[in-house]
């Protein structure tokens, strides 16, 4: 079907009247992995927050549809229920909300009543086990006092538990050591291998190409100054690895 996918068309968005995204066109097909690369400040996180519905980010033009459903104008919770997931670069700490209760509330919100509490628990422990997470995680408060690696693991656990149609991973690799990076790669692979996640599409936002050694991207985009200036295959990531963003910046004629 032609309207399948997370389709972003001519998206302009910004914060407090400053335009940051200057016309983004991007389609993530079901089952595909797209990487979005770019230097700091190029607008990658703005794209993630604009798609997820953060109230501080204003979309001024364009559209974003998820399997045909327009997301812009929907509240963040409705976008999530439509099948969108954002893995945060800096997940909020919420003392007083226990991980287990939060995951259950989130699963209930996204897929109401599809699992009995005992089946949910069984699923949760299986996913935690595969992520190498200690069961004591469940009784801790959400991201409260978590190390950087623990926060990212919890994001990956939520990805597994919510099994979205489309997942945006915003710099999930930042601050991670090689082992944790491998775990992120395995989390994405595990979801893609699961019955719920076979058709999931991914937008992997990253500054560094190294995450792409653990997740093979079908398509790589490079964003500079709020525009996607180059799109290619995995070889584009290798080019950035060797030469940095300057070559692409010059080639595209973008203002430094």
């Amino acid at each position, binding site marked *: 079907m032609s309207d399948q996918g997370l389709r972003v068309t001519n998206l302009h968005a910004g914060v407090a009247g400053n335009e940051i995204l200057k016309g983004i066109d991007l389609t993530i097909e079901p089952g595909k992995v797209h990487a979005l690369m770019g230097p700091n400040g190029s607008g990658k996180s703005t794209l993630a927050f604009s798609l997820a519905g*953060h*109230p501080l980010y204003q979309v001024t033009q364009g559209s974003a549809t998820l399997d045909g459903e327009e997301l812009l104008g929907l509240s963040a919770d409705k976008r999530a229920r439509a099948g969108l997931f*954002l893995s945060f670069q800096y997940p*909020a700490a*919420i*003392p*007083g909300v226990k991980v287990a209760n939060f995951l259950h509330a989130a699963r209930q919100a996204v897929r109401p009543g599809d699992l009995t509490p005992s089946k949910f628990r069984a699923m949760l422990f299986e996913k935690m086990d595969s992520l190498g997470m200690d069961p004591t995680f469940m009784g801790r408060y959400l991201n409260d006092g978590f190390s950087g690696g623990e926060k990212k693991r919890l994001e990956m656990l939520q990805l597994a538990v*919510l099994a979205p149609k489309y997942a945006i991973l915003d710099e999930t690799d930042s601050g991670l050591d090689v082992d944790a990076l491998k775990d992120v790669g395995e989390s994405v692979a595990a979801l893609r291998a699961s019955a719920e996640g076979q058709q999931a599409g991914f937008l992997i936002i990253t500054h560094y190409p190294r995450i792409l050694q653990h997740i093979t991207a079908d398509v790589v985009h490079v964003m500079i100054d709020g525009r996607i200036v180059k799109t290619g295959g995995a070889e584009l990531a290798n080019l950035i690895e060797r030469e940095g963003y300057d070559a692409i910046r010059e080639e595209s004629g973008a203002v430094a």
Partner: protein
Amino acid sequence: MPNALEDRLLSGAARAAARERFAATPSGRERPGRYWKVDLDALDLDLSTFSPDAGSVRIENPHPRAIVCELRAAAAEHGALLARAFGVTGAAETKFGALATAFAGLGAFVYVPADAACDEPIVITYSVPAGAAVFPSTIVLLERGARATVLERFEGGDGAFVCGTVEVVASERAHATLASLQTLAEDARILTTRTAKPHRDATVAFATADLGASLAAGEVKVSIEHPGARAEISTLFFPRGNQHVDIVSTVDHRVGQSTSDTVVKSAATDRGQARYLGNIRIAAHAQGSDASLRDDALLLSKNAHIDSVPALEIAANDVKAFHGATVGALDLDAIFYIESRGIPRGAAERMVTLAFFEPAIERFPTEGLREELRAALAAKLP
């Protein structure tokens, strides 16, 4: 001995003296101002209509090894035991403690013998008739190594006035937990004074929740006079509408090698007003004291107001003293994070607000009571 309380512990002269002390003692509370509208030194009270025996008390779950009875029965049957706790922890020294003492009569006495443990809460429920003025006293005496958990409840009270005391004497190594859940009608007024003296290596834990009443003014004071003693104070309140809550807690470390831990979580919405004053005093010779005071306030509407003042007076130099206080609004990043997981905004706000109270809720006894607190707090949210 129908008048055993008067004959043994509270003569007419003692009542008259308490009444005079009430009149002469300043409340010590701030004057009314831009936000706070109630003058605690000029409450509209007609003492000529007050009597010691209004209201009723219901006692549930008495422990077989403990003595748990109404105050007047305790005076008649266990006068010598009652005398070891009644009026000995200083409750009558405060303005409203003096008023409560002047009209004391309704109440309950809990006595736990040495090394007995009453961990299932003994529940003392004060039912307050509409329009009444009631003066409940809860007196707790624990012998060496005894443990007890007591839950006080205050219910009813359309337009009522409640002025009560709690006094706790915990002997060596004893552990007393005094929880209180106040859900009076929203036009009632309640003034409480809770005082305790833990002996060597004893712990006294107060956990109070003020959710009802138009005016709730509470004072909690633990005086630590023996090494190894510990005070825990946990307080939560949530004024909405025009409710006013004014809480003062004081831990007085008069000897060293003692610890205290105070946690206060408050929120206010609508035109709800609250004030909290947290006193920690460590005397000059109380070396090795360890005191912590954590006080956080959450404002949920622009007309709500909470004044929060930690007051530390530390005269010793070899102590640990922590205090932290915040006043703020809901964390929008937290709300967005929850929303991004599919949970609607209203539910996300309720989740964050209830979570905010959780560190105080956790310190209340029994999961059943904690669930009741969560539900009562949730019911106050828009």
